[in-house]
Protein backbone atom coordinates (compact mmCIF):
# COMPACT_ATOMS: atom_id res chain seq x y z
CA UNK A 1 0.00 0.00 0.00
CA UNK A 2 1.15 3.51 -0.80
CA UNK A 3 2.50 5.52 2.07
CA UNK A 4 2.69 9.30 1.92
CA UNK A 5 6.07 9.24 3.65
CA UNK A 6 7.54 7.15 0.80
CA UNK A 7 7.42 10.30 -1.32
CA UNK A 8 9.77 12.18 1.02
CA UNK A 9 12.87 10.75 -0.66
CA UNK A 10 11.63 12.18 -3.94
CA UNK A 11 10.13 15.57 -3.09
CA UNK A 12 11.82 16.22 0.27
CA UNK A 13 10.62 15.82 3.83
CA UNK A 14 9.79 19.54 3.94
CA UNK A 15 7.06 19.09 1.33
CA UNK A 16 5.57 16.08 3.13
CA UNK A 17 5.65 18.02 6.42
CA UNK A 18 3.68 20.82 4.76
CA UNK A 19 1.07 18.32 3.55
CA UNK A 20 0.67 17.06 7.12
CA UNK A 21 0.20 20.65 8.37
CA UNK A 22 -2.52 21.19 5.75
CA UNK A 23 -4.16 17.86 6.53
CA UNK A 24 -4.41 18.86 10.19
CA UNK A 25 -6.42 21.92 9.16
CA UNK A 26 -9.05 19.64 7.65
CA UNK A 27 -9.37 17.13 10.45
CA UNK A 28 -12.84 18.34 11.34
CA UNK A 29 -14.12 17.97 7.78
CA UNK A 30 -15.29 14.98 5.79
CA UNK A 31 -14.71 14.78 2.05
CA UNK A 32 -16.77 12.62 -0.29
CA UNK A 33 -15.55 11.95 -3.82
CA UNK A 34 -18.18 10.79 -6.29
CA UNK A 35 -17.49 9.58 -9.82
CA UNK A 36 -18.98 7.05 -12.21
CA UNK A 37 -16.51 4.17 -12.30
CA UNK A 38 -14.45 2.26 -9.76
CA UNK A 39 -11.90 0.92 -12.21
CA UNK A 40 -10.48 1.96 -15.56
CA UNK A 41 -9.86 5.46 -16.76
CA UNK A 42 -7.77 8.25 -15.37
CA UNK A 43 -10.24 9.45 -12.72
CA UNK A 44 -10.51 6.06 -11.03
CA UNK A 45 -6.74 5.68 -11.26
CA UNK A 46 -6.07 8.96 -9.50
CA UNK A 47 -8.77 8.42 -6.84
CA UNK A 48 -7.40 4.94 -6.09
CA UNK A 49 -4.11 6.56 -5.15
CA UNK A 50 -5.35 9.86 -3.81
CA UNK A 51 -8.02 8.80 -1.28
CA UNK A 52 -5.73 6.56 0.86
CA UNK A 53 -3.02 9.26 0.82
CA UNK A 54 -5.51 11.92 1.95
CA UNK A 55 -6.60 9.64 4.79
CA UNK A 56 -2.98 9.19 5.87
CA UNK A 57 -2.76 12.97 6.09
CA UNK A 58 -5.66 12.98 8.53
CA UNK A 59 -8.40 13.95 6.08
CA UNK A 60 -11.57 11.91 6.46
CA UNK A 61 -11.94 11.23 2.74
CA UNK A 62 -14.03 8.58 1.03
CA UNK A 63 -15.05 7.64 -2.47
CA UNK A 64 -18.48 6.65 -3.75
CA UNK A 65 -19.29 5.43 -7.24
CA UNK A 66 -22.63 6.35 -8.78
CA UNK A 67 -24.79 3.67 -10.36
CA UNK A 68 -25.89 3.71 -13.96
CA UNK A 69 -27.00 1.24 -16.60
CA UNK A 70 -25.92 0.85 -20.21
CA UNK A 71 -28.48 3.37 -21.42
CA UNK A 72 -27.15 5.98 -18.98
CA UNK A 73 -23.55 5.44 -19.97
CA UNK A 74 -24.40 5.55 -23.67
CA UNK A 75 -25.90 8.97 -23.04
CA UNK A 76 -22.89 10.16 -21.04
CA UNK A 77 -20.60 8.85 -23.80
CA UNK A 78 -22.50 11.14 -26.16
CA UNK A 79 -21.94 13.98 -23.67
CA UNK A 80 -18.25 13.15 -23.66
CA UNK A 81 -17.98 13.28 -27.44
CA UNK A 82 -20.00 16.51 -27.66
CA UNK A 83 -17.77 18.11 -25.04
CA UNK A 84 -14.82 17.26 -27.29
CA UNK A 85 -16.49 19.14 -30.10
CA UNK A 86 -18.05 16.16 -31.92
CA UNK A 87 -21.56 16.65 -33.30
CA UNK A 88 -23.84 14.36 -31.29
CA UNK A 89 -27.59 14.09 -31.36
CA UNK A 90 -28.58 14.38 -27.72
CA UNK A 91 -32.37 14.28 -27.38
CA UNK A 92 -34.55 15.74 -24.66
CA UNK A 93 -35.33 12.13 -23.68
CA UNK A 94 -31.62 11.56 -23.20
CA UNK A 95 -31.39 14.58 -20.93
CA UNK A 96 -34.47 13.51 -18.98
CA UNK A 97 -33.08 10.03 -18.44
CA UNK A 98 -29.69 11.46 -17.44
CA UNK A 99 -31.36 13.57 -14.75
CA UNK A 100 -33.56 10.70 -13.59
CA UNK A 101 -30.50 8.49 -12.96
CA UNK A 102 -28.78 11.33 -11.12
CA UNK A 103 -31.86 11.80 -8.91
CA UNK A 104 -32.06 8.08 -8.16
CA UNK A 105 -28.41 8.17 -7.13
CA UNK A 106 -28.95 11.23 -4.98
CA UNK A 107 -31.63 9.36 -3.05
CA UNK A 108 -29.60 6.18 -2.81
CA UNK A 109 -26.42 7.88 -1.58
CA UNK A 110 -28.51 9.57 1.15
CA UNK A 111 -25.57 10.69 3.31
CA UNK A 112 -23.38 13.50 2.05
CA UNK A 113 -20.16 14.73 3.62
CA UNK A 114 -19.09 18.29 4.49
CA UNK A 115 -17.38 18.60 1.12
CA UNK A 116 -18.89 16.82 -1.86
CA UNK A 117 -16.33 16.49 -4.65
CA UNK A 118 -18.02 15.51 -7.90
CA UNK A 119 -15.83 14.25 -10.75
CA UNK A 120 -16.77 14.79 -14.41
CA UNK A 121 -20.21 15.22 -16.01
CA UNK A 122 -21.85 11.88 -15.19
CA UNK A 123 -22.83 12.72 -11.56
CA UNK A 124 -23.01 16.50 -12.12
CA UNK A 125 -26.73 16.79 -11.41
CA UNK A 126 -26.34 15.42 -7.87
CA UNK A 127 -25.88 19.12 -7.08
CA UNK A 128 -29.68 19.39 -7.05
CA UNK A 129 -29.42 17.92 -3.57
CA UNK A 130 -27.58 21.03 -2.35
CA UNK A 131 -30.73 23.10 -1.95
CA UNK A 132 -32.00 20.60 0.65
CA UNK A 133 -28.83 19.73 2.54
CA UNK A 134 -26.37 22.59 2.00
CA UNK A 135 -22.70 21.46 2.31
CA UNK A 136 -19.82 22.59 0.10
CA UNK A 137 -19.88 21.28 -3.45
CA UNK A 138 -17.01 21.23 -5.96
CA UNK A 139 -17.16 20.04 -9.54
CA UNK A 140 -13.93 18.63 -10.96
CA UNK A 141 -13.69 18.58 -14.75
CA UNK A 142 -11.05 16.08 -15.88
CA UNK A 143 -11.72 16.37 -19.60
CA UNK A 144 -10.68 18.67 -22.41
CA UNK A 145 -13.24 21.46 -22.39
CA UNK A 146 -11.67 23.60 -25.11
CA UNK A 147 -14.32 23.37 -27.77
CA UNK A 148 -17.59 21.86 -26.51
CA UNK A 149 -20.82 21.79 -28.47
CA UNK A 150 -22.88 24.78 -27.22
CA UNK A 151 -26.06 22.82 -26.40
CA UNK A 152 -24.41 20.36 -24.07
CA UNK A 153 -22.26 23.10 -22.58
CA UNK A 154 -25.32 25.18 -21.77
CA UNK A 155 -27.07 22.19 -20.24
CA UNK A 156 -24.08 21.43 -18.01
CA UNK A 157 -23.49 25.10 -17.22
CA UNK A 158 -26.88 25.33 -15.54
CA UNK A 159 -25.64 22.68 -13.08
CA UNK A 160 -22.00 23.80 -12.80
CA UNK A 161 -23.13 27.24 -11.64
CA UNK A 162 -24.86 25.72 -8.63
CA UNK A 163 -21.50 24.48 -7.27
CA UNK A 164 -19.26 26.47 -4.95
CA UNK A 165 -16.23 26.05 -7.24
CA UNK A 166 -15.23 24.32 -10.45
CA UNK A 167 -11.79 22.84 -11.10
CA UNK A 168 -10.15 22.59 -14.53
CA UNK A 169 -6.88 21.00 -15.65
CA UNK A 170 -5.66 23.72 -18.02
CA UNK A 171 -6.39 27.44 -18.48
CA UNK A 172 -7.86 26.86 -21.94
CA UNK A 173 -10.58 24.66 -20.43
CA UNK A 174 -12.05 27.42 -18.25
CA UNK A 175 -15.45 28.69 -19.28
CA UNK A 176 -17.64 31.74 -18.97
CA UNK A 177 -19.33 30.64 -15.77
CA UNK A 178 -20.17 32.65 -12.70
CA UNK A 179 -18.53 30.57 -9.95
CA UNK A 180 -14.83 30.59 -9.00
CA UNK A 181 -12.72 28.48 -11.34
CA UNK A 182 -9.60 26.84 -10.02
CA UNK A 183 -6.66 25.48 -11.99
CA UNK A 184 -5.42 22.14 -10.73
CA UNK A 185 -3.27 20.24 -13.17
CA UNK A 186 -3.23 16.47 -13.18
CA UNK A 187 -0.14 14.67 -12.01
CA UNK A 188 1.99 11.57 -12.34
CA UNK A 189 2.93 9.20 -9.56
CA UNK A 190 6.71 8.77 -9.35
CA UNK A 191 6.27 5.46 -7.53
CA UNK A 192 3.98 3.87 -10.12
CA UNK A 193 5.24 1.20 -12.54
CA UNK A 194 5.19 3.74 -15.35
CA UNK A 195 7.45 6.19 -13.55
CA UNK A 196 9.49 4.41 -10.89
CA UNK A 197 13.23 3.95 -11.27
CA UNK A 198 14.18 0.87 -13.29
CA UNK A 199 17.38 -1.15 -13.17
CA UNK A 200 19.44 -0.69 -16.37
CA UNK A 201 19.21 -4.46 -16.99
CA UNK A 202 15.44 -4.18 -17.04
CA UNK A 203 15.59 -1.37 -19.60
CA UNK A 204 18.05 -3.35 -21.71
CA UNK A 205 15.91 -6.47 -21.62
CA UNK A 206 12.89 -4.54 -22.94
CA UNK A 207 15.02 -3.15 -25.80
CA UNK A 208 16.30 -6.62 -26.67
CA UNK A 209 12.78 -8.03 -26.61
CA UNK A 210 11.54 -5.28 -28.92
CA UNK A 211 14.56 -5.50 -31.25
CA UNK A 212 15.83 -1.97 -30.56
CA UNK A 213 19.56 -1.20 -30.74
CA UNK A 214 20.65 0.54 -27.55
CA UNK A 215 23.90 1.79 -29.11
CA UNK A 216 22.28 4.16 -31.61
CA UNK A 217 20.09 7.20 -30.79
CA UNK A 218 16.48 6.33 -30.04
CA UNK A 219 13.74 8.87 -30.73
CA UNK A 220 10.41 7.92 -29.18
CA UNK A 221 6.79 8.96 -29.17
CA UNK A 222 4.53 7.17 -26.72
CA UNK A 223 0.86 7.64 -27.54
CA UNK A 224 -2.16 5.70 -28.64
CA UNK A 225 -2.55 5.34 -32.39
CA UNK A 226 -4.70 8.34 -33.11
CA UNK A 227 -4.48 10.93 -35.91
CA UNK A 228 -4.52 13.68 -33.30
CA UNK A 229 -1.16 12.41 -32.02
CA UNK A 230 0.20 12.83 -35.56
CA UNK A 231 2.24 9.60 -35.82
CA UNK A 232 2.57 10.12 -39.58
CA UNK A 233 4.06 13.56 -38.94
CA UNK A 234 6.52 11.93 -36.56
CA UNK A 235 7.65 9.57 -39.32
CA UNK A 236 8.16 12.60 -41.59
CA UNK A 237 10.35 14.14 -38.89
CA UNK A 238 12.31 10.91 -38.60
CA UNK A 239 12.91 10.76 -42.36
CA UNK A 240 14.19 14.32 -42.46
CA UNK A 241 16.61 13.73 -39.61
CA UNK A 242 17.66 10.22 -40.66
CA UNK A 243 19.41 11.73 -43.69
CA UNK A 244 21.98 13.23 -41.32
CA UNK A 245 21.93 11.13 -38.16
CA UNK A 246 21.56 7.37 -37.83
CA UNK A 247 18.55 7.35 -35.51
CA UNK A 248 15.90 4.80 -34.69
CA UNK A 249 12.26 5.74 -34.23
CA UNK A 250 9.94 4.12 -31.73
CA UNK A 251 6.20 4.73 -32.02
CA UNK A 252 4.60 2.84 -29.18
CA UNK A 253 1.16 2.90 -27.68
CA UNK A 254 -2.06 1.04 -27.16
CA UNK A 255 -5.71 1.59 -27.70
CA UNK A 256 -6.18 0.21 -31.19
CA UNK A 257 -7.70 -3.24 -30.73
CA UNK A 258 -11.33 -2.31 -30.09
CA UNK A 259 -11.23 1.02 -31.86
CA UNK A 260 -11.81 0.84 -35.64
CA UNK A 261 -10.32 4.29 -36.18
CA UNK A 262 -7.28 3.36 -34.11
CA UNK A 263 -6.74 0.24 -36.23
CA UNK A 264 -6.91 2.36 -39.37
CA UNK A 265 -4.32 4.78 -38.00
CA UNK A 266 -2.07 1.89 -36.99
CA UNK A 267 -2.28 0.42 -40.51
CA UNK A 268 -1.46 3.85 -41.96
CA UNK A 269 1.56 4.15 -39.69
CA UNK A 270 2.80 0.65 -40.56
CA UNK A 271 2.34 1.36 -44.23
CA UNK A 272 4.28 4.63 -44.03
CA UNK A 273 7.03 2.97 -42.01
CA UNK A 274 7.14 0.36 -44.79
CA UNK A 275 10.21 -1.80 -44.59
CA UNK A 276 12.41 0.64 -42.69
CA UNK A 277 13.89 -1.60 -40.00
CA UNK A 278 14.77 1.42 -37.86
CA UNK A 279 11.14 2.40 -37.39
CA UNK A 280 9.62 0.37 -34.57
CA UNK A 281 5.85 0.52 -34.52
CA UNK A 282 4.83 -1.20 -31.30
CA UNK A 283 1.23 -1.89 -30.32
CA UNK A 284 1.35 -2.31 -26.57
CA UNK A 285 -1.24 -4.37 -24.70
CA UNK A 286 -2.88 -2.90 -21.59
CA UNK A 287 -0.67 -3.13 -18.48
CA UNK A 288 2.50 -2.32 -20.39
CA UNK A 289 3.55 0.29 -17.88
CA UNK A 290 7.00 -1.19 -17.28
CA UNK A 291 7.63 -1.36 -21.06
CA UNK A 292 6.60 2.28 -21.48
CA UNK A 293 8.82 3.27 -18.59
CA UNK A 294 11.77 1.36 -20.10
CA UNK A 295 11.25 2.80 -23.59
CA UNK A 296 11.17 6.33 -22.18
CA UNK A 297 14.28 5.73 -20.12
CA UNK A 298 16.13 4.27 -23.10
CA UNK A 299 15.27 7.19 -25.38
CA UNK A 300 17.71 9.85 -26.49
CA UNK A 301 14.94 12.35 -27.29
CA UNK A 302 11.19 12.04 -26.75
CA UNK A 303 8.60 13.61 -29.03
CA UNK A 304 4.95 14.46 -28.43
CA UNK A 305 3.91 15.90 -31.74
CA UNK A 306 0.18 16.04 -31.01
CA UNK A 307 -2.15 18.17 -33.12
CA UNK A 308 -4.58 18.37 -30.21
CA UNK A 309 -4.04 17.32 -26.64
CA UNK A 310 -5.91 17.20 -23.34
CA UNK A 311 -3.27 17.73 -20.72
CA UNK A 312 -0.64 15.47 -22.26
CA UNK A 313 0.73 13.69 -19.20
CA UNK A 314 3.07 11.62 -21.41
CA UNK A 315 5.16 14.79 -21.52
CA UNK A 316 5.40 14.85 -17.72
CA UNK A 317 6.32 11.16 -17.76
CA UNK A 318 9.13 11.80 -20.23
CA UNK A 319 10.45 14.86 -18.42
CA UNK A 320 10.35 12.99 -15.13
CA UNK A 321 12.94 10.64 -16.66
CA UNK A 322 15.09 13.75 -17.37
CA UNK A 323 14.69 13.28 -21.12
CA UNK A 324 14.87 16.17 -23.57
CA UNK A 325 11.37 16.54 -25.00
CA UNK A 326 10.14 18.23 -28.15
CA UNK A 327 6.38 18.67 -28.01
CA UNK A 328 3.64 20.61 -29.71
CA UNK A 329 2.42 23.74 -27.99
CA UNK A 330 -1.15 22.42 -27.55
CA UNK A 331 -3.49 21.64 -24.62
CA UNK A 332 -1.66 21.43 -21.31
CA UNK A 333 1.79 20.95 -22.85
CA UNK A 334 2.89 24.61 -22.54
CA UNK A 335 2.28 24.31 -18.78
CA UNK A 336 4.77 21.44 -18.67
CA UNK A 337 7.42 22.89 -20.97
CA UNK A 338 8.85 26.39 -20.95
CA UNK A 339 10.40 26.69 -24.38
CA UNK A 340 14.19 26.32 -24.38
CA UNK A 341 14.25 26.11 -20.57
CA UNK A 342 12.66 22.79 -19.75
CA UNK A 343 12.12 21.38 -23.23
CA UNK A 344 11.24 22.51 -26.72
CA UNK A 345 7.83 23.61 -28.01
CA UNK A 346 7.36 23.14 -31.75
CA UNK A 347 4.62 23.88 -34.25
CA UNK A 348 5.47 21.95 -37.40
CA UNK A 349 7.27 19.00 -38.94
CA UNK A 350 10.10 21.25 -40.10
CA UNK A 351 10.43 22.86 -36.69
CA UNK A 352 10.44 19.51 -34.92
CA UNK A 353 13.07 18.15 -37.34
CA UNK A 354 15.25 21.21 -36.82
CA UNK A 355 15.11 20.95 -33.02
CA UNK A 356 15.58 17.18 -33.08
CA UNK A 357 18.81 17.53 -35.07
CA UNK A 358 19.93 20.26 -32.71
CA UNK A 359 19.32 18.16 -29.58
CA UNK A 360 20.98 15.09 -31.08
CA UNK A 361 24.03 17.15 -32.06
CA UNK A 362 24.20 19.07 -28.78
CA UNK A 363 23.86 16.43 -26.08
CA UNK A 364 24.95 18.78 -23.31
CA UNK A 365 22.18 21.24 -24.14
CA UNK A 366 19.73 18.36 -24.44
CA UNK A 367 20.81 17.06 -21.07
CA UNK A 368 20.35 20.48 -19.47
CA UNK A 369 16.79 20.67 -20.84
CA UNK A 370 16.11 17.22 -19.43
CA UNK A 371 17.46 18.12 -16.00
CA UNK A 372 15.41 21.33 -15.90
CA UNK A 373 12.39 19.41 -17.13
CA UNK A 374 12.69 16.85 -14.37
CA UNK A 375 12.93 19.58 -11.75
CA UNK A 376 9.88 21.28 -13.21
CA UNK A 377 7.87 18.06 -13.00
CA UNK A 378 9.14 17.39 -9.49
CA UNK A 379 7.94 20.77 -8.33
CA UNK A 380 4.70 21.01 -10.23
CA UNK A 381 3.32 17.77 -11.65
CA UNK A 382 3.80 15.01 -9.09
CA UNK A 383 0.96 13.54 -7.06
CA UNK A 384 2.18 15.37 -3.93
CA UNK A 385 1.50 18.74 -5.56
CA UNK A 386 -1.89 17.43 -6.69
CA UNK A 387 -2.74 16.43 -3.10
CA UNK A 388 -1.57 19.82 -1.83
CA UNK A 389 -3.83 21.61 -4.32
CA UNK A 390 -6.83 19.50 -3.30
CA UNK A 391 -6.19 20.25 0.37
CA UNK A 392 -5.93 23.98 -0.39
CA UNK A 393 -9.09 23.78 -2.48
CA UNK A 394 -11.02 22.18 0.38
CA UNK A 395 -9.74 24.78 2.85
CA UNK A 396 -10.54 27.62 0.43
CA UNK A 397 -14.22 26.69 0.48
CA UNK A 398 -14.41 28.15 3.97
CA UNK A 399 -12.53 31.39 3.22
CA UNK A 400 -13.46 34.31 0.97
CA UNK A 401 -10.28 36.34 1.37
CA UNK A 402 -7.25 36.35 -0.98
CA UNK A 403 -4.68 35.83 1.77
CA UNK A 404 -5.69 33.17 4.26
CA UNK A 405 -3.88 32.76 7.60
CA UNK A 406 -4.24 29.27 9.00
Amino acid at each position, binding site marked *: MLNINDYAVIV*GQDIIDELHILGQKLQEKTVQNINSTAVGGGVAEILTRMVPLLRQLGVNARWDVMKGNEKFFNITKKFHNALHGVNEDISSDDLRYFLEVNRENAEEINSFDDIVFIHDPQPIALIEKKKDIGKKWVWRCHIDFTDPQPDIMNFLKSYIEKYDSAVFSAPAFSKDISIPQILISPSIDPLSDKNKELMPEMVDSVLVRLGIDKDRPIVTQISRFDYLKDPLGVIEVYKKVKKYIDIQLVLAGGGATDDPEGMKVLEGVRSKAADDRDIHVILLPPSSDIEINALQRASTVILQKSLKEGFGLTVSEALWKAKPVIASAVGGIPLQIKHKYSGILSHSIDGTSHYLKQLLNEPEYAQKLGINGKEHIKNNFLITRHIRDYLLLFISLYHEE*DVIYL
Partner: protein
Amino acid sequence: MNTSFHFYTQMHLIELLRIKAKNPVEILEGLKKVPTSSIYYHTHRFLQQHHYLSPEPPNDFAYWITEVLGLEELGESLAGVDTVSFKNLEELRAEYIKILTNYISKGKHIIDCEDGEEFYFMGCKTFVLPTPYFAHNLKEFIEILNKISINSLYFHMFEARMRLKRDENDFANWFRNMGEKKLAKDLLRLDPYNVTLEGLREDIINLVRKYAKH
Protein backbone atom coordinates in the same frame (compact mmCIF):
# COMPACT_ATOMS: atom_id res chain seq x y z
CA MET B 1 11.44 40.44 24.82
CA ASN B 2 11.05 37.32 22.72
CA THR B 3 13.59 37.62 19.94
CA SER B 4 12.96 34.30 18.27
CA PHE B 5 12.11 34.14 14.60
CA HIS B 6 9.14 31.94 13.75
CA PHE B 7 9.29 30.49 10.24
CA TYR B 8 6.04 30.44 8.31
CA THR B 9 5.31 28.90 4.98
CA GLN B 10 2.90 29.73 2.22
CA MET B 11 1.15 28.03 -0.65
CA HIS B 12 -1.02 29.16 -3.51
CA LEU B 13 -4.21 27.96 -5.12
CA ILE B 14 -4.46 29.17 -8.69
CA GLU B 15 -7.63 30.87 -9.89
CA LEU B 16 -8.63 31.15 -13.54
CA LEU B 17 -9.84 34.66 -14.33
CA ARG B 18 -11.37 33.97 -17.77
CA ILE B 19 -9.32 36.79 -19.29
CA LYS B 20 -6.95 35.93 -22.11
CA ALA B 21 -4.78 37.84 -24.54
CA LYS B 22 -3.37 37.08 -27.96
CA ASN B 23 -1.27 40.21 -28.51
CA PRO B 24 0.32 43.11 -26.57
CA VAL B 25 -2.83 45.25 -26.81
CA GLU B 26 -4.88 42.58 -25.10
CA ILE B 27 -2.17 42.04 -22.49
CA LEU B 28 -2.42 45.75 -21.73
CA GLU B 29 -6.22 45.58 -21.47
CA GLY B 30 -5.95 42.59 -19.17
CA LEU B 31 -3.32 44.22 -16.99
CA LYS B 32 -5.62 47.15 -16.40
CA LYS B 33 -8.52 45.09 -15.12
CA VAL B 34 -7.14 42.05 -13.30
CA PRO B 35 -6.96 42.03 -9.47
CA THR B 36 -3.58 42.58 -7.84
CA SER B 37 -3.42 38.89 -6.98
CA SER B 38 -3.00 38.34 -10.72
CA ILE B 39 -0.15 40.86 -11.02
CA TYR B 40 1.43 39.06 -8.11
CA TYR B 41 0.88 35.64 -9.66
CA HIS B 42 2.45 36.51 -13.00
CA THR B 43 5.42 38.38 -11.55
CA HIS B 44 6.15 36.27 -8.50
CA ARG B 45 4.72 32.82 -8.62
CA PHE B 46 6.57 32.18 -11.87
CA LEU B 47 9.76 32.53 -9.90
CA GLN B 48 8.58 30.01 -7.36
CA GLN B 49 7.33 27.55 -9.95
CA HIS B 50 10.59 27.68 -11.88
CA HIS B 51 12.97 28.17 -9.01
CA TYR B 52 15.50 25.69 -10.39
CA LEU B 53 16.05 27.65 -13.60
CA SER B 54 18.80 30.11 -14.24
CA PRO B 55 17.53 33.53 -13.10
CA GLU B 56 15.62 34.18 -16.31
CA PRO B 57 12.81 34.28 -17.27
CA PRO B 58 11.74 36.82 -14.65
CA ASN B 59 8.00 36.99 -15.20
CA ASP B 60 5.18 35.52 -17.24
CA PHE B 61 4.63 38.65 -19.33
CA ALA B 62 8.24 38.86 -20.50
CA TYR B 63 8.39 35.13 -21.17
CA TRP B 64 5.22 35.12 -23.25
CA ILE B 65 6.03 38.28 -25.22
CA THR B 66 9.52 36.98 -26.02
CA GLU B 67 9.00 33.27 -26.55
CA VAL B 68 5.46 33.15 -27.94
CA LEU B 69 5.19 36.43 -29.86
CA GLY B 70 8.91 36.71 -30.60
CA LEU B 71 8.95 40.42 -29.64
CA GLU B 72 12.38 40.45 -28.11
CA GLU B 73 12.75 44.17 -27.54
CA LEU B 74 9.43 44.48 -25.74
CA GLY B 75 10.13 41.26 -23.86
CA GLU B 76 13.45 42.66 -22.76
CA SER B 77 11.82 45.85 -21.47
CA LEU B 78 9.32 43.81 -19.47
CA ALA B 79 12.06 41.54 -18.18
CA GLY B 80 14.05 44.59 -17.15
CA VAL B 81 11.45 45.86 -14.71
CA ASP B 82 13.28 46.20 -11.42
CA THR B 83 10.67 44.45 -9.29
CA VAL B 84 12.60 44.95 -6.08
CA SER B 85 12.31 48.73 -6.38
CA PHE B 86 8.51 48.72 -6.26
CA LYS B 87 6.81 48.93 -2.91
CA ASN B 88 3.52 47.44 -3.91
CA LEU B 89 1.72 45.62 -6.68
CA GLU B 90 -0.21 48.65 -7.94
CA GLU B 91 3.07 50.45 -8.63
CA LEU B 92 4.36 47.36 -10.37
CA ARG B 93 1.19 47.10 -12.45
CA ALA B 94 1.58 50.77 -13.46
CA GLU B 95 5.12 50.10 -14.68
CA TYR B 96 4.03 47.25 -16.94
CA ILE B 97 1.15 49.37 -18.24
CA LYS B 98 3.59 52.20 -19.00
CA ILE B 99 5.94 49.94 -20.96
CA LEU B 100 3.16 48.37 -23.00
CA THR B 101 1.45 51.73 -23.65
CA ASN B 102 4.72 53.18 -24.91
CA TYR B 103 5.30 50.23 -27.18
CA ILE B 104 1.79 50.30 -28.64
CA SER B 105 1.80 54.09 -29.09
CA LYS B 106 4.79 53.78 -31.42
CA GLY B 107 2.39 52.21 -33.89
CA LYS B 108 4.42 49.06 -34.30
CA HIS B 109 2.85 46.15 -36.10
CA ILE B 110 0.81 44.14 -33.60
CA ILE B 111 0.84 40.42 -34.19
CA ASP B 112 -1.40 37.75 -32.72
CA CYS B 113 -0.08 34.54 -31.23
CA GLU B 114 -0.92 31.16 -32.74
CA ASP B 115 -4.28 29.70 -31.71
CA GLY B 116 -3.88 27.78 -28.48
CA GLU B 117 -0.94 29.84 -27.26
CA GLU B 118 -2.91 32.69 -25.75
CA PHE B 119 -1.84 34.30 -22.50
CA TYR B 120 -4.27 33.42 -19.72
CA PHE B 121 -4.48 35.77 -16.80
CA MET B 122 -4.59 33.94 -13.50
CA GLY B 123 -4.83 34.93 -9.90
CA CYS B 124 -4.18 33.11 -6.68
CA LYS B 125 -5.31 32.63 -3.14
CA THR B 126 -2.39 32.56 -0.72
CA PHE B 127 -2.38 30.37 2.37
CA VAL B 128 -0.01 31.27 5.19
CA LEU B 129 0.82 28.58 7.75
CA PRO B 130 3.15 28.40 10.75
CA THR B 131 5.94 25.80 10.67
CA PRO B 132 7.28 24.22 13.87
CA TYR B 133 10.62 26.02 13.45
CA PHE B 134 11.89 28.90 15.64
CA ALA B 135 15.35 30.45 15.45
CA HIS B 136 16.72 32.13 18.59
CA ASN B 137 20.07 33.17 17.15
CA LEU B 138 21.92 33.35 13.84
CA LYS B 139 23.35 29.85 14.15
CA GLU B 140 19.89 28.33 14.56
CA PHE B 141 18.66 30.58 11.76
CA ILE B 142 21.21 29.03 9.37
CA GLU B 143 20.31 25.50 10.44
CA ILE B 144 16.62 26.09 9.84
CA LEU B 145 17.11 27.99 6.60
CA ASN B 146 18.97 24.94 5.33
CA LYS B 147 15.99 22.66 5.85
CA ILE B 148 12.84 24.73 5.37
CA SER B 149 10.97 24.47 2.10
CA ILE B 150 11.46 26.89 -0.72
CA ASN B 151 7.89 28.00 0.01
CA SER B 152 8.94 29.26 3.43
CA LEU B 153 11.97 31.11 2.08
CA TYR B 154 9.75 32.59 -0.57
CA PHE B 155 7.17 33.74 1.96
CA HIS B 156 9.65 35.62 4.13
CA MET B 157 11.60 37.17 1.26
CA PHE B 158 8.87 38.07 -1.25
CA GLU B 159 5.36 37.61 0.02
CA ALA B 160 5.83 39.64 3.18
CA ARG B 161 7.19 42.66 1.39
CA MET B 162 5.21 42.90 -1.79
CA ARG B 163 1.85 41.38 -1.12
CA LEU B 164 1.49 41.81 2.60
CA LYS B 165 2.86 45.35 2.23
CA ARG B 166 5.58 45.16 4.85
CA ASP B 167 8.44 47.61 4.39
CA GLU B 168 11.21 45.08 4.17
CA ASN B 169 11.60 41.34 4.07
CA ASP B 170 11.04 39.45 7.32
CA PHE B 171 14.62 38.27 7.71
CA ALA B 172 16.05 41.79 7.45
CA ASN B 173 13.46 42.99 9.94
CA TRP B 174 14.43 40.30 12.47
CA PHE B 175 18.16 40.94 12.01
CA ARG B 176 17.59 44.63 12.67
CA ASN B 177 15.57 43.89 15.82
CA MET B 178 18.37 41.59 16.97
CA GLY B 179 20.80 44.48 16.68
CA GLU B 180 22.42 43.10 13.51
CA LYS B 181 21.87 46.30 11.54
CA LYS B 182 24.71 45.77 9.09
CA LEU B 183 23.54 42.24 8.32
CA ALA B 184 20.02 43.59 7.68
CA LYS B 185 21.47 46.21 5.36
CA ASP B 186 23.61 43.67 3.50
CA LEU B 187 20.62 41.39 3.07
CA LEU B 188 18.50 44.19 1.63
CA ARG B 189 21.24 44.83 -0.90
CA LEU B 190 20.66 41.38 -2.42
CA ASP B 191 18.34 41.45 -5.43
CA PRO B 192 16.24 38.36 -4.79
CA TYR B 193 14.58 38.57 -8.20
CA ASN B 194 17.77 37.83 -10.07
CA VAL B 195 18.83 34.55 -8.57
CA THR B 196 17.14 31.19 -8.33
CA LEU B 197 15.50 30.45 -5.01
CA GLU B 198 18.10 27.81 -4.19
CA GLY B 199 20.78 30.35 -5.10
CA LEU B 200 19.08 32.87 -2.85
CA ARG B 201 18.98 30.39 0.02
CA GLU B 202 22.72 29.83 -0.41
CA ASP B 203 23.47 33.55 -0.65
CA ILE B 204 21.58 34.30 2.56
CA ILE B 205 23.23 31.43 4.41
CA ASN B 206 26.69 32.58 3.29
CA LEU B 207 25.90 36.12 4.33
CA VAL B 208 24.53 35.20 7.75
CA ARG B 209 27.43 32.80 8.34
CA LYS B 210 29.86 35.75 8.25
CA TYR B 211 27.95 37.42 11.07
CA ALA B 212 27.24 34.27 13.05
CA LYS B 213 31.00 33.88 13.63
CA HIS B 214 31.23 37.16 15.52
